[in-house]
């Protein structure tokens, strides 16, 4: 039987860690690290126990436990947990990969003086993310959605003395804000049209039952508004601009938040509330196309990046696009499968990159790295495994999950299928590019790379752990666990063949260009006019910057004027002026003459008398 207490413990243990660190151990680096790791490991253990309790139980268990938080008339907001296989899968990913990254951070951040603050923020993030995973109603989900955004802001701008980091944090938060506005509108609209028998409800379970009775046009609007939130959180086009800059944060942050978990929250949301989207073909089409466009656009941008973390960031964007596309093609199972494997290998890649950065004393440009495979064998090999998994090479986990998505696309929409295939080819190409440039070949005789040596155990053990998961992930039977009653078609041979050929082609082409380790990127000249367009990220940032500078600032100026002139000058100063004038007039009553006072006195008496007499 499922014990819901485990869910609650998993929920609140990172929060406890965060609170204890903040109150008591902000001076001690080791204590903070141990507290944070203890918090997340507790959650992980609880998740594993929950998993064992629901493993192979048929029909699949869906357990809900909530208390009424706010109840005013017809408005009821609950606070509770909803445990089903989907939630437990996500919980395992968040806590498992999270634990690995927390342990890794202990090594990565050991030189940083403010690492206690880091662990406090990380624990806060873990709490918020688990909150999103376990929430059983939209409002609670939204609260934790925002909290996750806050944690992301805090962690991106962790080195706040660096202006670029602080700006990146603000950018992430503001872009997410824009998206969350749409999200909130969607939630409230859904609530207002829901009628679950005894009133309106935010609960997923209630809404799932009632969705079929609602007007499909309104529901499409709701679906698209909720998808706005996904566009922001999972960095789809056109709100993708914050993810690349989010690499300003420390690498463990990039691994945990911007690869494995937070950005995947949007996908998770779609899967969790898929009952809303299921019947709406227009909405789903929009979602699928946005996913496809994001996937392709991001892949093209990754080709010209030279910062190792930015390459991985665009790669994440691209894979997220694929997941969104899968959901748009009515494949929540495929989307979640890819999310799981992606969590494994993307975290692996980021941690590997972090290991490299750490060993090279915060050097991040791949053109300043060479022959790292020889210098740092464990990192190199695990990174290679990650690269191959991401490219979709048989029989690693990435192959299986990406293949499912490609098969789904080939069945429903051939345009998107070719977009996805092209994306996979580009993925293999730029990952190969990264590997050949930074890891392949002979170690240089001088410079940073010459002095690089393998990172400490506390960092390499998580790498190995994640590498093992990446290799075996395809054989764990994840789709069956998540959706045991959905159809699981046998593998589509032609799709599998085409994807493998495309992947190998990508790797081969990249070897051709970069295998000999040129000193400069030949693409700069080969791509001609395309190169600056790609370098400027299709000018998205330019357009947004122009908008903010001109349109938004003008609107802000108008409101400023309203406040300054109308409210302050007329309102506030006007009031004081009025009071002063009244005072000037009324002070004449203080004439100092006793007779005048007596007169007024008698006047009052006469007046009162008058009232009494006339009333009588």
């Amino acid at each position: 039987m499922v014990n819901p207490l485990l869910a609650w413990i998993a929920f609140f243990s990172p929060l406890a860690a965060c609170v204890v660190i903040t109150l008591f151990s902000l001076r001690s680096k080791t204590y903070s690290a141990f507290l944070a790791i203890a918090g997340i490991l507790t959650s992980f253990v609880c998740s594993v126990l929950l998993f064992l309790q629901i493993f192979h139980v048929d029909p699949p268990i869906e357990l809900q436990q909530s208390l009424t938080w706010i109840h005013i008339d017809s408005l009821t907001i609950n606070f509770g947990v909803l445990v089903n296989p989907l939630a437990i899968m996500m919980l395992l990913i968040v806590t498992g990969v999270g634990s690995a990254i927390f342990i890794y951070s202990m090594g990565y951040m050991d030189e940083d003086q403010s690492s206690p603050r880091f662990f406090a923020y990380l624990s806060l993030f873990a709490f918020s993310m688990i909150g999103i995973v376990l929430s059983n109603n939209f409002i609670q989900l939204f609260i934790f959605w925002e909290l996750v955004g806050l944690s992301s802001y805090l962690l991106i701008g962790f080195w706040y003395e660096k202006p670029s980091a602080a700006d990146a944090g603000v950018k992430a938060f503001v872009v997410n804000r824009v998206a969350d506005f749409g999200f909130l509108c969607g939630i409230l609209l859904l609530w207002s049209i829901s009628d679950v028998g005894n009133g309106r409800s935010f609960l997923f379970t209630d809404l799932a039952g009632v969705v079929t009775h609602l007007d499909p046009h309104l529901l499409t609007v709701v679906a698209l508004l909720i998808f706005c939130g996904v566009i922001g959180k999972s960095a789809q086009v056109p709100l993708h601009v914050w993810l690349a800059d989010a690499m300003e944060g420390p690498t463990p942050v990039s691994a945990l938040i911007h690869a494995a978990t937070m950005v995947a929250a949007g996908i998770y949301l779609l899967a969790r509330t898929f009952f809303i989207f299921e019947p709406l073909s227009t909405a789903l089409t929009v979602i699928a196309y946005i996913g496809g466009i994001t996937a392709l656009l991001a892949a093209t941008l990754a080709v010209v990046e030279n910062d190792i973390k930015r390459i991985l960031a665009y790669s994440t964007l691209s894979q997220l696009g694929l997941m969104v596309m899968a959901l748009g093609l009515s494949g929540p199972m495929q989307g979640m499968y890819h999310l799981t494997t992606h969590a494994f290998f993307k975290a692996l890649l980021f941690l590997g990159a972090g290991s490299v950065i750490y060993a090279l004393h915060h050097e991040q440009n791949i053109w300043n790295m060479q022959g790292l495979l020889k210098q740092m064998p464990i990192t190199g090999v695990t990174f290679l495994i990650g690269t191959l998994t991401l490219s979709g090479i048989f029989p690693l986990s990435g192959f299986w999950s990406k293949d499912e998505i490609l098969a789904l696309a080939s069945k429903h929409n051939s345009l998107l299928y070719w977009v996805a295939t092209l994306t996979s080819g580009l993925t293999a190409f730029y990952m190969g590019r990264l590997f050949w440039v930074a890891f392949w070949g002979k170690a240089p005789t001088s410079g940073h790379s010459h002095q690089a040596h393998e990172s400490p155990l506390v960092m390499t053990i998580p790498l190995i752990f994640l590498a093992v998961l990446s290799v075996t992930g395809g054989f764990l039977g994840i789709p069956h666990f998540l959706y045991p009653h959905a159809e699981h078609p046998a593998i589509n041979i032609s799709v599998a063949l085409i994807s493998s050929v495309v992947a190998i082609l990508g790797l081969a082409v990249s070897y051709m260009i970069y295998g000999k380790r040129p000193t400069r990127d030949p693409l700069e000249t080969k791509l001609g006019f395309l190169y600056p367009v790609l370098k400027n990220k299709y000018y998205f940032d330019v357009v947004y910057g122009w908008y903010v500078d001109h349109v938004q600032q003008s609107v802000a100026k108008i409101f400023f004027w309203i406040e300054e002139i109308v409210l302050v000058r007329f309102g506030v100063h006007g009031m004081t002026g009025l009071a002063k004038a009244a005072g000037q007039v009324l002070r004449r009553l203080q004439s100092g003459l006793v007779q005048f006072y007596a007169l007024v006195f008698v006047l009052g008496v006469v007046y009162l008398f008058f009232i009494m007499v006339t009333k009588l």
Partner: protein
Amino acid sequence: MIGLGHYLLLSGILFSIGIVGVTTSRSVLKILLSLELLLAASNLSFVAFSRFNGDYTGQLIVFFVILVAAAEVAIGLAIVVLMYRHFSTIQADELKDLKW
């Protein structure tokens, strides 16, 4: 027949004259005198009520009012004298120190 109403009307007239005196006099002494008129008016109405209602309370109140009025006048006149010494005049207009 002289009824209660006659006495009350008389008392009212006296009171009004007293009010006029208090508010229109320039000299402080005259104000005090008018004050006495006010008190006399109310004394008259008290005694009239006492007579016509068969209750001695009115007369006793008058007794006490007379006493208190005496005390008040005494102090009031002392103040008038002091005022004359300070301001060399007893015009009420001159007491303007508490003006805004």
